[in-house]
């Protein structure tokens, strides 16, 4: 393992904790009946977004999934307007029009969560095409699950990106389940990275619960992609610690299975184990970050609660640029 700058490690930890606490709070608020819509939490998968997106520039693009809060945070979105959006408030990133499943922050290249499984794949391909045409040096990263991997549009996007050598990284978050369906049932291969061969692109399977492994893989992939070699596929093995959505009765798996994973392979615990053992960070360092983030999340919720809902007159805003509603 390489040596890391302390600041980098602190940032990794801050991002992972920010996602974890943000998501815990969202879950809490949802169960408390405060949130409209439905929410899919990223808990247990923090190492992926964090280890990977920490290597991107602000103007690089990310196209996300229905489980998008973590991607948003790791790409640099602020949690205040995120929380406000999830509350449906006019101060949210999408002014309350999108909610959890359509959260986006274009100012940091985050092209949105997506309510359609697989819907983000080709947005990233297109953004990468734009980057290539503009010779801007930007890259695009797109996420999909072990379930989403079986959508046809993923196949189309990977082939298209490959023939045009587009700067895009296809990231599979293999968290073992697609809603209630275990990937061992619905997905014909144990390691989806094998599919990369079908498009003549590199594909590697990496431990997605180890932020350092993710980060190393990300750096390699980015080097390859930024050099103009074309797309790259990263498959991260991980586990969805929470239900598919908040409120999921989780009848398709045992509590024991979840607890075991949480005890043995939670990405935050994994991180702590390494940095403490190597003395890269102290418990005190980590506690300070944790406390700071907890306060930040609390403020975000407090504010979101107080923020105003959009007024009726906002319904037809942010819609056609040039008007045209009958």
């Amino acid at each position: 393992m390489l040596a890391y700058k302390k600041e980098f490690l602190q940032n990794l930890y801050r991002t992972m904790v920010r996602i974890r606490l943000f998501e815990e709070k969202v879950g809490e608020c949802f169960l408390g009946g405060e949130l409209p819509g439905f929410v899919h939490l990223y808990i247990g998968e923090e190492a992926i977004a964090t280890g990977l997106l920490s290597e991107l520039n602000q103007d690089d693009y990310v196209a996300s999934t229905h489980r998008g809060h973590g991607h948003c945070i790791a790409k640099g979105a602020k949690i205040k307007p995120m929380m406000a959006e999830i509350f449906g408030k006019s101060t949210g990133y999408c002014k309350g029009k999108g909610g959890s499943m359509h959260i986006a922050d274009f100012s940091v290249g985050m092209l949105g969560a997506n309510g359609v499984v697989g819907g983000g794949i080709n947005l990233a391909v297109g953004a990468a095409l734009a980057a290539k045409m503009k010779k801007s040096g930007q890259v695009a990263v797109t996420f999909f699950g072990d379930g989403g991997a079986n959508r046809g549009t993923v196949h189309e996007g990977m082939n298209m990106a490959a023939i045009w050598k587009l700067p895009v990284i296809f990231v599979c978050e293999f968290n073992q389940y697609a809603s209630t369906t275990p990937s061992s049932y619905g997905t014909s291969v144990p390691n989806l990275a094998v599919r990369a061969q079908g498009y003549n692109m590199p594909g590697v399977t990496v431990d997605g619960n180890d932020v350092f492994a993710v980060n190393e893989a990300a750096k390699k992939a980015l080097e390859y992609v930024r050099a103009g070699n074309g797309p790259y596929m990263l498959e991260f093995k991980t586990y969805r610690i929470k239900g598919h959505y908040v409120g999921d009765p989780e009848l398709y798996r045992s509590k024991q299975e979840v607890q075991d994973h949480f005890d043995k392979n939670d990405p935050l615990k994994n991180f702590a184990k390494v940095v403490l053992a190597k003395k890269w960070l102290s418990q005190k360092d980590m506690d300070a970050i944790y406390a700071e983030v907890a306060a930040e999340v609390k403020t975000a919720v407090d504010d979101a609660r107080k923020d105003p809902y959009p007024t009726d007159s906002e319904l037809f805003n942010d819609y056609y640029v040039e008007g045209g509603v009958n």
Partner: protein
Amino acid sequence: MREISFSEATLEAMSEEMERDSSVFVLGEDIARQGGIFGQFKGLPQKFGTERVLDTPISETSIVGAAVGAALAGMRPVADMHFADFIGVCMDEVFNQMAKVRFMFGGQCKVPMVLRAPDGIIRSAAAQHSQSVEAWFMHIPGVKVVIPSNPADAKGLLKAAIRSDDPVLYFEHKVLFPMKGPVPDGDHIVPIGKANVSRAGKDVTIVSYSLMMHRALEAAEKLATEGVQAEVIDLRTISPIDKETIFESVRKTKRLVIVHEAVKQGGVGAEISALVAEEMIDWLDAPIRRIGAPFVPVPFSPPLEQLVKISADNIVKTVKEICR
């Protein structure tokens, strides 16, 4: 009559038809392990085995394509769309295969399949999980389209759809699943293509379907207290349309309002209105009014979502405008 929920009613239909005919089976995402995302398939795998109750990958084009293929090979598949919003993913399979193969192949085959699609606005599910797109399918020759509003029709239409040798789209509003209502015992079938006069009246005809039937009936109650007797027609099938039932009512009431949750522009209401304007215009004493959502995607935030939903009061107001 016993009362059961809409979702139980669809379950009974599935169960009875699967028992009756071993070629009936069901496939879709989260059907077997979850019992369907709205519980509408609960218990079926226990009863019929996971060979006939198939969880699928997230592969909508395969779900519908394979259902068509299985139908061509003698089965009677019922495919589930999870959310009607995802039907765009397999629109080609619906539009170019399911609807057309029998005709294109000169009647060599038939396609006895049902595609179930839960639609409608529910609890701030936002722009990609709240849509009603039934109107597209009335513009596609070769399929039939049903859309029940209550448990009895849910059961009867689903049974009819499963038994039909033609491909049927079955839209079911997500908000209806838990709603209870009387359902006849026994082999209850509601014929495809027949509308139902849910409430008799003489002053105005309100045509609706699906969840909006409940708003329409509420509106009719309110109107009755103000002396306006609305006749309320539940279309139940939107393709083929039961013109006669509508025309008969309009002959009597001379006023027509059509109500649906989908956006007004290009919706089913346009077709109904046009049919009447074409064949019944001389009977009318007032403009034909349509009530549908404003032309905008469904917003997430609850107060905004409220603005695109139709209330009984909207209907009352419109009816009064043309009953002056």
